């Protein structure tokens, strides 16, 4: 048992929702998408993730919800060690995490309401309730009038908002959002970011990967900056709440 693991099991991490410890990820032998990354995000914290194209933002998020396994290092998410998680334990973990994918990943054969409700149905929420909650979320992202439409008949920004609604609908303990406003205009961006930050004030730990400097400045939260897979900067929150 390494020193780190002894710490983890003895609860020395305190209120860490996410901890990575010397994590590396290599897709192609000899190159690293992430390299020796050690960081902690506390419960309820709101963190921005920045870095240029290919810096490893998406990779880091993927590791956190066990879509990929680290090549090296240990990852603790909600008290579970991702590197050693059994395959069968993954769904249970994912239900506690909401994810907005960079490419949305909507189910094209379902209506957008069903797309949002699916997050609830997988945990056995009765359909009526699931649909009612999905409707509420769709209203918050301004798409309630489209609820019976299918994703392919929505504009890019509309699809993105469906993805956000799906990630938030089951009030996850952690929200991972990958470029959630890349297809939105500045006004909508603020609306959506306000929605996300209100989830954060209700206790959800939030990690948002973004390129949008206006957003970074406006919210003034802690910002983790990646460069070529390495942690380049970790700027604490300025407290400039809008």
């Amino acid at each position, binding site marked *: 048992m390494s020193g780190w693991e002894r710490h983890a099991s003895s609860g020395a991490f305190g209120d860490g929702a996410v901890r990575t410890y010397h994590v590396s990820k290599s897709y192609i032998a000899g190159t690293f998408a992430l390299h020796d990354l050690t960081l902690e995000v506390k419960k309820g914290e709101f963190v921005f993730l920045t870095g240029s194209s290919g810096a490893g933002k998406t990779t880091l998020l993927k590791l956190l*919800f066990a879509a990929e396994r680290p090549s090296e290092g240990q990852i603790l998410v909600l008290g579970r060690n991702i590197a050693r998680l059994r*395959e069968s334990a993954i*769904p*249970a973990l*994912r239900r506690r995490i909401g*994810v907005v994918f960079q490419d949305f990943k909507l189910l094209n*054969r*379902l209506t957008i309401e069903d797309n949002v409700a699916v997050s609830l149905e*997988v945990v056995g929420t*009765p359909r009526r309730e699931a649909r009612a909650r999905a409707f509420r979320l769709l209203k918050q992202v301004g798409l309630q009038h489209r609820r019976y439409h299918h994703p392919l008949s929505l504009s890019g920004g509309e699809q993105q908002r469906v993805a956000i609604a799906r990630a938030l609908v089951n009030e996850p303990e952690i929200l991972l959002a990958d470029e959630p406003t890349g297809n939105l205009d500045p006004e909508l961006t603020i609306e959506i970011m306000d929605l996300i930050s209100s989830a954060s004030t209700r206790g959800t730990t939030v990690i948002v990967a973004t390129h949008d400097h206006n957003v970074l400045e406006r919210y003034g939260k802690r910002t983790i900056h990646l460069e070529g897979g390495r942690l380049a900067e970790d700027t604490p929150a300025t407290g400039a709440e809008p």
Partner: protein
Amino acid sequence: MKRFGAILLSLVRSGFRGLQSSPVTSAVAVLTISVALVLGGGFALLVSNMGGVLERFGEELQVVAYLEDGLEPDEARALADSVRTVEGVAAVALVTKDEALRRFRETTGGGALLEGLDQNPLPASVEVRLIEARRTPEGLAVVVSALSGLPGVSELAHGQEWVEGYARFVALVRTTAVGLGIVLGIAALMIVANTIRLAVYAREDEIEIMALVGASRSFVRIPFLIEGTVQGAVGGGLALLLLYTGYLLALPQLEYGLELVLGNVTPHFFGASGALTVVAAGSGLGLLGSATALVGARSGS
């Protein structure tokens, strides 16, 4: 409990939603299953009808016990009765000397051949038909040895060769039927599995996304299994319909031919249990097909 019910409902619903939301793929799968079942079911039908024909062939098999010349009609009748009690004997018919002569005249056409004789040279005989289980060389030997011990029997004609030929023919037909049945069954299974596999492949994204939002393995897979089973059942029903149509269309032709060649064997279609078996086979194929298709699917984790 409520949670479980909700999940179950949601599984069934999304199984049917799958059918509905990809109608072309579903139709293709149903069609393929029904084509496979038409082949398999048609073959089963053929074999079951051939069974009747074989049965008739087998009935031709008989052992003839020629009787000693001095035997009185009463004695002959008593002998026939005692033969009836021999194990393995299904039916016994007494052929008197007069009857034998009549038959001879009939078959040789005219019988001028025996005209010059002052007395009937043909012996009386007892014709013995065997039960089905004894229509083998071994079964025959048992019956023959029992008969040959009876007093009053002068000679036994039992067509050993015919029996051997028949037994081998039946064995050949059975082996061929079983062999072809296995080949057809495997072919049907593979074709159906392949079709459903491709249908699942087309929806791999969906499987992956479901896994990414926290659906368990079974939550993702069960709808596909339900979908496959339903497709299979529908395919089975369609196959039954096609087979019956084909049967009705082919019947006049077949009856005419079969009657001439094989006597009055009446063709028959599946009964209720046979029909049910076809539909069940369809569901089974669909279920098995989707199950094997899912083995290869990427899971998104």
